[in-house]
C-alpha cells in the first residue's frame, strides 16, 4: 500500500498550507519560492542534495534499528559523536590524499557513532532499560560533551569560537560541483553537496542487502517481530540488539563525513542541525525501505533547502520546516491508522462489490 504514506504526506502538507495561510502568507507563493530555491538551479540542487545526503544516513540508521524492533531516537547524538570522530581523524592523522582521508573519516565517524549507540544498546539488552529514553539522554550527554570539548580542549589558542581548528587541506573532499568542473562542465558552483552522497547511496544499497539478503538481516527482522520466536530459533536477543545498534549508530555517525568533513571542514557546535530527528521522519516516510528512504531524504532535503530560501526571500521563517516535519512524522508515524483503516475499509468494500 503505497497510498497510505502519500495520503499522510498530502495531509501534512495541507495542514502546513493552512498554517502558512493563517500567518497571512500564500502557500502557493511559498511553494514557488521553495521549488525555485531548492530545485530551480543547479546551485539549489547542490544544496538540496547535501541535506539529502545527511538524511539518507540518519534515515537508514533509524530504519535498521526499526527492523529489529528498536526505536533509535539517538541519531542526533550519534551523528554528533561521529563528528568528533571525523574531526579527530582529520586533525591528528597526516593524510596523504583526500581519498584516504575520506575512507579514514568514514570509518572514524561510524566507529564513534557506533560506540555512542553501544551503551544504550547494552543497557537495553542486558538491563532492560528502555532504549528510547536512554538514547534521548545520550543525545544531551553528547551535546554537553561536545560543548565542553569545543570550548576547552579542542578550541585552538586565541580563538573565541567553540570550534576546532580548520582541517588540513589534504582532508578536503571535493564537492559535486568540483567533480563536474573536472569533467568539464559547470554545475552548482560552490554548492554544498559532495562526494559523500555516493557513500550514502552505497550505504542504502548495503542496507538493502543486509536486511533482505543476509542471515543477520533475517535474524534482526525476526527478532523485531517476535523476541520469543527469535529465542526459540536460537537468535540471541543480546547479540542482535547490540549489533543492530552498532550498525544504526555507525550509519548515523558516518553522516559526519558529509557535514563536518565535506561542508564546514572543522567541527562546530550544532553541526548536526537536527538531522537525527529528520531521520525519523525520513524512515517513517520511506517505510523503512532504502529506496523509500532515498526518496524521502530527497524530499526533506528539498524542504530544508527550500526553507532556507524561504526565510531569505519571504517573511516566513525557516522554522516552517520544523512544522512540516512534525506534521509528516505525526501523520505517517502516529496517525497512520487514521489514514490506513478507512482506506482498507474502502478497498475491502470495493472488492466485495466487484466480487
Amino acid at each position: 500500500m503505497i497510498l497510505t504514506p502519500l495520503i499522510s504526506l498530502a495531509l501534512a502538507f495541507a495542514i502546513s498550507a493552512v498554517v502558512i495561510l493563517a500567518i497571512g502568507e500564500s502557500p502557493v507563493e511559498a511553494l514557488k519560492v521553495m521549488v525555485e530555491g531548492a530545485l530551480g538551479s543547479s546551485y539549489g540542487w547542490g544544496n538540496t542534495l547535501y541535506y539529502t545526503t545527511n538524511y539518507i544516513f540518519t534515515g537508514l540508521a533509524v530504519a535498521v534499528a526499526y527492523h529489529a524492533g528498536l526505536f533509535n531516537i539517538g541519531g542526533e547524538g550519534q551523528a554528533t559523536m561521529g563528528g568528533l570522530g571525523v574531526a579527530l581523524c582529520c586533525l591528528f592523522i597526516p593524510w596523504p590524499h583526500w581519498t584516504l582521508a575520506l575512507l579514514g573519516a568514514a570509518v572514524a565517524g561510524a566507529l564513534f557513532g557506533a560506540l555512542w549507540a553501544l551503551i544504550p544498546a547494552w543497557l537495553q539488552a542486558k538491563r532492560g532499560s528502555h532504549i528510547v529514553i536512554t538514547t534521548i539522554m545520550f543525545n544531551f550527554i553528547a551535546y554537553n560533551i561536545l560543548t565542553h570539548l569545543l570550548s576547552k580542549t579542542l578550541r585552538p589558542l586565541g580563538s573565541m569560537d567553540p570550534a576546532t581548528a580548520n582541517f588540513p587541506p589534504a582532508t578536503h573532499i571535493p564537492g559535486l560541483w568540483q567533480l563536474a568542473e573536472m569533467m568539464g562542465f559547470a554545475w552548482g558552483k560552490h554548492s554544498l553537496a559532495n562526494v559523500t552522497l555516493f557513500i550514502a547511496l552505497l550505504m542504502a544499497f548495503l542496507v538493502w542487502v543486509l536486511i533482505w539478503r543476509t542471515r543477520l538481516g533475517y535474524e534482526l527482522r525476526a527478532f523485531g517481530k517476535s523476541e520469543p520466536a527469535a529465542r526459540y530459533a536460537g537468535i540471541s536477543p543480546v547479540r542482535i540488539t547490540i549489533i543492530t545498534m552498532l550498525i544504526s549508530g555507525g550509519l548515523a555517525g558516518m553522516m559526519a563525513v558529509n557535514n563536518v568533513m565535506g561542508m564546514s571542514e572543522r567541527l562546530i557546535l550544532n553541526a548536526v542541525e537536527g538531522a537525527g530527528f529528520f531521520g525519523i521522519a525520513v524512515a517513517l516516510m520511506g517505510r523503512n525501505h532504502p529506496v523509500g528512504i532515498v526518496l524521502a531524504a530527497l524530499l526533506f532535503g528539498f524542504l530544508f533547502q527550500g526553507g532556507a530560501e524561504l526565510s531569505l526571500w519571504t517573511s516566513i521563517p525557516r522554522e516552517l520546516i520544523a512544522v512540516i516535519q512534525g506534521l509528516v512524522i505525526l501523520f505517517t508515524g502516529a496517525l497512520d491508522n487514521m489514514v490506513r483503516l478507512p482506506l482498507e475499509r474502502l478497498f475491502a468494500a470495493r472488492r466485495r462489490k466487484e466480487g
Partner: protein
Amino acid sequence: MAVQPEHPTSPQIAAGQDLAIELRGISKAFGAVQANKSIDLAVRRGTIHGIIGENGAGKSTLMSILYGFYRPDEGEILIGGQPVAITDSRAAIRAGIGMVFQHFKLVQNFTVLENVILGAEDGALLRPSLARARGELQRLARDYEMQVDPDEIVEELSVGHQQRVEILKALYRQADILILDEPTGVLTPAEADHLFRVLQGLRDEGKTIILITHKLREIMKITDNVSVMRRGEIVGTVATADTNPTAMAEMMVGRKVILKVDKAPARRGAPVLEIRGLRMVDDAGVERLRGIDLDIRAGEILGIAGVAGNGQSQLLEILGGFPEVGSKLSGRIAVNGHELPLDGRGADGQARRRAGIGHVPEDRQVEGLIMDFDAWENAAFGYHDAPEYNRGLLMDNAAIREDARGKMARFDVRPPDVELAARNFSGGNQQKIVVAREIERNPDLLLVGQPTRGVDIGAIEFIHKRIVELRDAGKAVLLVSVELDEIMALSDRIAVMFDGRIMGERLPEEATTTALGCLMAGMEPDAGPVQAAGGART
C-alpha cells in the same frame, strides 16, 4: 437418545419456564469469518449450563457478546425475559452478568481488595468503599469457602486464588449470572473440584452459571444442561442427565471421533535423551523444576501429562535451548550419549538443532512462527544457517522458496502459497508448516508441545500420523500436552509432571484417567481421597 436442534421452545427447556438468559438469532462475523451463526440459546435460572465445543467453535465469541465486548451483527438478548441492549461491559454488569475470563483481568500489583472494588466503588473517595468491601468480602469468603487475604498483592497469589478473586469480584457486583470461560485449564484436579463445589453452592442459591469448556468430563460432572457448539452454531441442547460423553463428542466434531491412533508397538532402540537431576529456578527465585530424571529411547514416544504450569513448558524450553531469561539451571542433559551444556553460548537453539533436536513449540504464534513473515521464510526459521539455504555471505532465497514449496505440498498446507504471510493461514495449516519444518529435518529427538492446540480435527489426525511415522523411523519423541486423551492415544510411555517433578510413569495400556488424574494432582493413586488443593503456580 435423540438430540434435537435447539429452539427457544425446545422440549428440554420449555417456554414459560424461568429463563435467566435468552439469546435469539445472534450472529457475529469478523471479516470473512462467521464466528456465530444465528444462535438461539435459553438458560434456565438456577442451573449450571455448559457450553461445549472445540477450539474455534465460537464459544468465547458468544460469551464476549453477552459480556458486551463485541456487538452482535444481528440478534437479540433477553435477560430475565426483558430485551437488553448490552453495549458494553458496564451494561452487562448492570444486567447482573459477571464473567471470569480464561486470562484473568486483574491488576497484578493491586491488593485483592483494590481489585474487587475497581469499577464498583461507592463514591469518589476510596476509604469508605474499601471498608465496605472488606466486610462484604469476608462474608462472601465465608459463605462460599473462598478464603483469600484481602490485603495480599494479587501477583503473590497462586493461580487458583487469583481465580477466586475473579469470582469474588463478580459476586461483589451482585452478579446473578456467572460466566466462566475454561476455568479449569490452569487448575489441578483438586482445585477444580473445589471450584465445582463453589459453583454448585452458588447454583443452589439460585444463581445461574454458564460454564464454557472443551472438556467432556467437566460437563458430565456438574452441568444441568449443555449446549454443543460447532463452527459457530449451536448444534444441540440437552439435559446432561440424558446424554453420554460419546454422543457429546460426536456432536462436537460432527462425526465419530477416533480417540485411538493406529500404531504398531514401539521398537525401542538405544537411549537418545537422558536427563539427570535437572533443576531450574526462575528469575523470581521460584523453583520450577525440582530434579527431573527422564530417559527416552529411539523409536518411542514419551508423553508428559500434567496440568498446565507444572514445569512442562520450562522442560521443553531448556531442552530447546531457550530457558526463561534470568533462570538458574543445574543437572545434566545428554543426547545420543553426548552431554549438552545447559546454558551459555553452546546451549542456544542453534546448538540444540545441531545436536539433532527438533522442536514443535507450545505456542506456534508466539514462538514457532514469525506471523508477519511469509510461509517460505518461516519454513526455514531456526535452520536459516543451514548450508543449503545459504550461498556465501548471502541467503539463497530461491533455494529456501523451492524447499518450502516441497514441504507445503508434502504436508498438504492450504493454500499452498509460499508468498503468503503466516498470519493468513488457519491454525491447523500454521501448525503444519511448523511440523513440516521440524520433522523433515529428521531430528534424532523431536520435542512436541501441545501439537494440536487450536487445530482442526483433520489436521490433528494428520499431525499425529506424522509424529508416529517419525517414531517408527527410529526417532525419539518427547510429547507434552495438557490433553490427556492425546497423551493416552499417542504415547508409548506416560510420565506425569506435578510441581516441577515427575510424579510417576505409566504404560498407556495400564493407565486409567483416574490414576493419571491423581498423579497430576500430586498424589499417589492409592493415597486415598483427594485432599485440599495443592498450590501449583504458573
